[in-house]
């Protein structure tokens, strides 16, 4: 399948859109300078020989496209017809291949940097517009400036499809991927009224397919980042593509399904997460704890940032949460049984991962469980794990709730800047102010080795791996008791 050949060449850094660029996105005008024509002719002559197959016109067009894309060294090997799995700059050439194909042609084809510098990157056609201020800040204003430069530079908007793809890729760098105004600006680059179907033949056959694909790509990126299009987008799409086009269809679908799924998250997390770690921890703790009457306490604020590094302060922040039910349960806890500080477990808020520790006790064996000593948890909070009493089942879920995993009750949750024992010990001390009985209960620290580990490794800790650290924890126990007896 000849058509597939150029597609198989891996675009090094430019993922999906590049493959489209390569094969499928070319503006109707292919301006060939004389020098390019010479190279094309040379490649036409040499391409046929090593493989012995003839060169079809479609293949020639593809080659020309490839040349105009500026793929430099990669294209030259493509032209010689070398098998792509062994693409090297020195591909074996047939006897008839001229040397013209291998000449680095700097004025026409921007040369990719040497491979020793890492990933070979072919420059996209209008990329220099985005490099106007290499030392300048990359933000919305400079992005808008780059886009406006393109529209000014080129009244006929030549190469606008490529430019829009490039701009879509660059959006993340400039931090504007969730800005609706920027998407509307990108759609504005399209020339208006040109791509609208005007008669039945236009509407039967996909009118201006590359442009429609590009419009869909813009909408798809909007969709990926969760940006809802507005009336301006609709108007632009109607102006550019007409009402019966695929981008318009996609817009209608986005409108429908976004509105349907906008509020289905029962635990919504705000889009802009707070940057301050204390606020973030507060948000996260409130997110995790279903009991609304729980109190968030800040046990330690981080040190001010003038002398120490914010990421590694000597006094990391410690914030804990505890509900009145948990306080009562802790007060009733038998001092003879130890309680455990486990962690760190990970929690994801949108795209930020934070870690928390919990204070829990083991499950009481069935014979020691006293039913009815603690008030049963409310129905709205069934899986809280706070009891010896089983969660109250409804008539429908009775068959199901008999199988629930029973785990020991959780007494408090905390989030701290550091995950070592000293910080958590400070948390325990802070907890003692509101839970005086905690002073008499031995606390064992079951922390996993590194803070980045998943729940898997910490909950998967079976008894055998615990015994070596537990020897250490016994000493900690004694230390704790001594501290508590002294304080």
């Amino acid at each position, binding site marked *: 399948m000849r058509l597939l050949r150029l*597609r198989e060449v891996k675009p*090094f850094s430019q993922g999906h859109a590049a493959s489209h660029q390569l094969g499928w996105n070319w503006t109707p005008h292919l301006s060939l300078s004389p020098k390019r024509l010479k190279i094309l002719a040379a490649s036409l002559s040499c391409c046929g020989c090593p493989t012995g197959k003839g060169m079809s016109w479609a293949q020639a067009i593809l080659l020309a496209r490839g040349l105009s894309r500026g793929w430099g060294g990669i294209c030259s090997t493509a032209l010689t017809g070398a098998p792509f799995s062994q693409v090297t700059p020195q591909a074996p050439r047939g006897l008839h291949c001229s040397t013209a194909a291998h000449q680095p042609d700097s004025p026409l084809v921007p040369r990719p940097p040497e491979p020793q510098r890492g990933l070979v990157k072919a420059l996209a056609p209008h990329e220099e517009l985005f490099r106007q201020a290499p030392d300048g800040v990359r933000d919305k204003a400079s992005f808008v400036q780059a886009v406006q430069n393109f529209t000014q530079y080129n009244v006929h908007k030549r190469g606008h499809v490529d430019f829009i793809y490039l701009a879509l890729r660059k959006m993340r760098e400039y931090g504007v991927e969730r800005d609706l105004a920027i998407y509307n600006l990108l759609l504005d680059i399209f020339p208006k009224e040109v791509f609208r179907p005007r008669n039945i033949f236009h509407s039967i056959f996909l009118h201006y397919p590359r442009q429609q694909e590009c419009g869909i790509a813009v909408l798809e990126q909007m969709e990926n980042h969760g940006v809802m299009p507005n009336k301006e987008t609709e108007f632009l799409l109607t102006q550019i593509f007409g009402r019966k086009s695929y981008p318009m269809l996609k817009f209608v679908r986005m409108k429908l399904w976004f509105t349907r799924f906008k509020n289905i998250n029962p635990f919504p997390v705000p889009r802009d997460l707070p940057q301050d770690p204390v606020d973030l921890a507060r948000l996260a703790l409130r997110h995790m704890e279903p009991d609304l009457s729980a109190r968030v306490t800040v046990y330690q604020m981080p040190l001010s940032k003038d002398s120490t590094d914010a990421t590694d302060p000597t006094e990391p922040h410690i914030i804990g949460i505890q509900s009145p039910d948990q306080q009562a349960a802790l007060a009733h806890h038998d001092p003879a049984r130890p309680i455990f500080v486990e962690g760190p477990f990970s929690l994801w808020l949108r795209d930020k991962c934070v870690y928390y520790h919990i204070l829990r006790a083991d499950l009481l064996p069935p014979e020691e469980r006293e039913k009815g000593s603690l008030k049963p948890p409310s129905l709205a909070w069934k899986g809280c794990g706070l009891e010896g009493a089983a969660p109250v089942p409804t008539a429908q879920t009775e068959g199901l709730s008999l199988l629930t995993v029973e785990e020991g009750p959780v007494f408090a949750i905390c989030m701290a800047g550091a995950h070592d024992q000293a910080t958590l010990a400070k948390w325990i001390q802070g907890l003692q102010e509101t839970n005086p009985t905690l002073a008499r209960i031995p606390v064992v620290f079951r922390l996993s080795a590194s803070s980045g580990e998943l729940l898997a490794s910490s909950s998967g800790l079976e008894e055998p791996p615990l015994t070596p650290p537990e020897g250490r924890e016994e000493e900690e126990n004694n230390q704790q008791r001594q501290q508590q007896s002294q304080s």
Partner: protein
Amino acid sequence: MALVHKLLNGTYILRKCPKPGVASCPFLSTRFADYCSSSLEKPVAAPGKAPSQRKTEGNLEGHHQREVALDITSPEDKPEVSFDKAIKEEIKDHFRRLKDDIVNHWIGPEGRPLHEVLMEQAKVVWQFRGKEDLDKWIVTSDKTIGGRSEVFLKMGRNNQSALLYGTLSSEAPQDGESGRSGYCAMISKIPTGPFERKRFYDWSQFNTLYLRVRGDGRPWMVNIREDTDIIQRKDQMYSYFMFTRGGPYWQEVKIPFSKFFFSNRGRIRDAQYKLLLDKISSIGFTLADKVDGPFFLEIDFIGVFTDPAHTEEFAYENSPELNPRLFK
């Protein structure tokens, strides 16, 4: 499964082969909106097809896919020493199951008396109490298309739950074709009767799916596939989102079946139909929220029950703008 080994030895389904729609038509890229479908916020188009390809007709090749290597549930398995003995065992096992099947047919549906089945209001379909429960699930990730995500399934604490964990990486594979990547999925194996005949679940009396999970705050997607016995519909599935809260508490997720929307090849269809519960083939959980990093999901059990307070039949009405044909 020695019999299966011998019969199907060497079959290997490549990921890319059963995608004729994409390869043959050069205009139809994975990004291009299909005529009768639209895309969602979360699932990716091309990788969305990969979990669907597991469910080919009478699919047992799933055992031989590369993803089995990702599943670390049984690293201590000793290879069978004698194939013939194992085959004989297996044939006997199949005949025994056939006999049970015939006898059960006289007792009632699925071997239980009819009145018990009709009065049932809640049923646990999958629970995780041992290694054999884990064998009923397959885990996949985008490694099949060349991505970097990893996913593993193992028993959780005290053998009381299953833990699905791994790392998601949305780095797109450099194959010139995929623009997006990054998904992990856990799919249940299709229930089989004697002689590996495909069976299905019948949940027509229930109206809500009940899951007891403990996640890390990531949004998952629950996919249900119908039985493809009559018509080949391996790319179609019904999905809905499952939002985990995160935290140390177990979370109960109740999703009514009326909320599941219909999608084909990873994209939502314009014409929506409700999920028919009488021939369910499998259920799956997918994570593809475009955030790189480790994840975990602890599942206690999965069940179905009837919620009498839920009277909705189907949550999505078809719009005349998108589907004028349905409103003629």
